[in-house]
Structures are given as C-alpha cells and as structure tokens.
C-alpha cells in the first residue's frame, strides 16, 4: 500500500500541523455531514485565531459552535449563521468577524480554489451589500460581480465510506459542501464511517478521488438532527 495509504490512527495525528491563524474550510450543511470529531480535535488542541470557511457555524454545543466559547474563531465566512447564542454575542460585540457569502458563491469559491481558478464572475450578489468593493461587469447585457476563490490551509471533511487511498463516497445530503472543501485544502483531512480496501469502491461511483485527500481517519458520529420533522404514520 505504502505511499497511497492515507489512513492515520488518531485524531491528533489527523489535525497535526494546524496552527494559530490558519484558514480551515469545513464541509457540512447545518449539522448534516459535518466533520464532528475533527472539530472536537480543534477544540481539544485549543488552536486560536482561525478563519473558518463553512456554510454555517453549528449550534451552541455541537459542530463549529463548540469553538466559540474559547474564542478559537477569529473570522467566519458563511452563508447563514447565528443559530447559537454565543455566536450572536460575539458577532454583536465585534469579537467575531463574519463575512456573509451567498451559499452558491461560497460553494463555487471552494470549487474554484481547488480547481486553479483564481476568480469567476457571477450574477449572485450584484447590486447587494455582497458586491461592495468588488468589480462589476456586464456580459451580454447582464450584470455580474467578480468573486475570488477560497483556499484553506486545512480542509476538514466528513464522508461516508472511503478506501485506504482516500477515494470517498458520500451519503445522501450529507454530501453538500464536503467534496468542494476536499479540493480546496492544502492539507485535506477526512473522517469516515467505514474504510474499505482499494478496489472495493466502484470507480464510476467515487465522489472524491483520493488525490485530494491527505489524511483519513475512521470515526464514530453522533449525527445530531437540527430540525426533527416527521409526518404521522397514517
């Protein structure tokens, strides 16, 4: 296996090299498909001054929200936040910098970061506060703004299955931002529910090729549900 075996055996090893002031891109939408144990490891490490790139910021006691009490996050780039009290307090007091980014632009910025595209034009955000300070340009009579790519020192990702080479498969809507985050980290760390041998995953159905993955760890997950909505069995 040698050179392509990405499996590490501890969360400490998984997040080794994370330093104060770094940028971390995280997969997940709400609490769905978040790399919950990698986040816990960041809390344990106590790394500070981080810039987090993530669609949301968890809740008070789960997900990225757990990095708030110790003021580990300096800045967050997200599309929708404030599902927790401590977040609100830090934002209102100016302790936490928040850069609101439209959800599609955020996803595309991650993809661009991984794909060697430094910037792209999008109609999203034209004429809104998001456009402030950004170049505006017309193509075919429509207005667009220029959005730069995002890259991270680390990307933290949750997948369903992986083989030892780091080929990843995601499950249902837990996929969300994870494949994009995976491409945009200098060091991409992935935690999964199951690790199989290379060759066991169908090459046609791998969502993220192992080339994007640096470290892989087997985890157990709480998978907390944010809005438990059911219909009656009738």
């Amino acid at each position, binding site marked *: 296996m040698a050179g392509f075996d990405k499996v590490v055996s501890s969360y400490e090893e998984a997040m080794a090299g994370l330093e104060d002031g770094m940028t971390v891109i995280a997969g997940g939408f*709400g609490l769905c498909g978040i790399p919950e144990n990698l986040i816990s490891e960041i809390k344990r490490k106590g790394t500070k001054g981080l810039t987090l790139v993530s669609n949301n910021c968890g809740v008070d006691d789960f997900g990225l929200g757990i990095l708030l009490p110790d003021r580990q996050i300096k800045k967050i780039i997200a599309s*929708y936040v404030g599902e927790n009290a401590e977040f609100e307090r830090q934002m209102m007091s100016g302790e936490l910098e928040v850069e609101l980014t439209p959800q599609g632009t955020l996803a595309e910025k991650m993809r661009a970061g991984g794909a060697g595209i430094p910037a792209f034009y999008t109609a999203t955000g034209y004429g809104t506060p998001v456009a402030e300070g950004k170049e505006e340009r017309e193509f075919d009579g429509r207005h667009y703004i220029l959005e730069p790519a995002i890259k991270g020192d680390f990307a933290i990702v949750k997948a369903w299955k992986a083989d030892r080479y780091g080929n990843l498969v995601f499950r249902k809507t837990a996929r969300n931002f994870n494949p994009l985050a995976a491409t945009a980290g200098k060091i991409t760390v992935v935690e999964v529910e199951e690790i199989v041998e290379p060759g066991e995953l169908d090459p046609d159905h791998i969502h993220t090729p192992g080339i994007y993955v640096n470290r892989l760890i087997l985890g157990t997950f709480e998978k907390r549900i944010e809005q438990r909505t059911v219909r009656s069995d009738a």
Partner: protein
Amino acid sequence: MALSREQLAQRVAQELQDGYYVNLGIGIPTLVANYVPEGMEVMLQSENGLLGMGQFPTEAEIDADLINAGKQTVTMATGASIFDSAESFAMIRGGHVDLTVLGAFEVDVNGNIASYMIPGKLIKGMGGAMDLVAGADNIIVTMTHASKHGVSKLLSNCTLPLTGKGCIKKVLTDLAFIEIKNGKFHLLERAPGVSVEEIVKLTDGELVIEGAIPEMKF
C-alpha cells in the same frame, strides 16, 4: 379578505406546470407543495443538494443524512438525485430551475428585493436566497402586502439592503397578485373581497391598474 397562508400557497400552486422543477423557500413557499394540482407532477429542488424532495419522514424513516435546505428531515421522491452544493447552485444559477418561490421583506417597482437583513437586528445571512433570485427567470415572491401597522412593503425603492437587483417580476401578497414591468407595479388580480382602492392605499410604489381587476379564483 386578506389571503391566509394556505390561500397564498394555493394561488402560487396555480402557476405550476406539469414537469416543473421548483425551488420553494422556507415558510409559505414550502406550503405550495401541498397544493400541487391533481394529475400534475413537479419535482422539488432543495439547494443543499437534493432534486426530488419527498414528504417528511415517518419516525422510522428519519435519517440524519437526509435533510432539506430548512434543515428539516425529509425523504426522497421517486427519481430523486443527490449532488454537492456547487452542482446544486450550478443548477440554480444556470437557470435550470423552472420556478422559484420565496418570501421577502420588501420589493420595489424596479424588481429589487430585500429579504435577508434588517440592519441593527441580528444578521443571520442570505443562505441561498441571493443565488436563487439572481439565477431564476421565473420567480414568485410571496409576502404580506403591508406591515401590521399599514406600512407598505411594495415600494418605489427598497429601504433594506437588497438580496437582488432587478430580478423580481411577480409578487403575490395577501391582497394582490402583481406583475413588475417597466419600473411599475401592475395589478393583475385581487384577493377575494379586497377592493382595488384598498390595494392602492397599501401600495407605496406606482401601481398601474388597467381595466377591471379580477378576483383570484380558488
């Protein structure tokens, strides 16, 4: 009488066509799914990466890995597909969704929409709303026509920070169905029992009234 939330959803549902791919925002738009006309099929896009959103799960079906854009547990409809967030917004921003329904705080005669931010209050973010309004050709905004204090939400110029500029053409309020063109509101229909005068009174931006304005039919 002003339309109920259910009636708003019902009226929007009349704009559906068989085979439409539809994105429904949180709140009233979500209710539209309950009024899809008999014999018609639409497929719901949820911007977190699901095309073919089904109903809520039973207790036994609940799956933490399967939620909608409102973070509610859902199921998949037959023929559903799953994709990542970049693909989901490629779909939205590339104009592939046939109809988008979403709420707003304000719209104005130039098709501007404000829906995500009230300065001074807690700012939660635009989520996918800016992408949805910029990417879709066919958008229906559902909202109340005026505040409880009678302040119009259909304005000459939006006062709140914009979600999108010049992108709204149809607005359904609890009082009226309105088209926006050439820098004016155009009254198309009124809620049953609501007079044109009442609508005029509660519409701040210029409102064009041509001919007799029919009542909505349910």
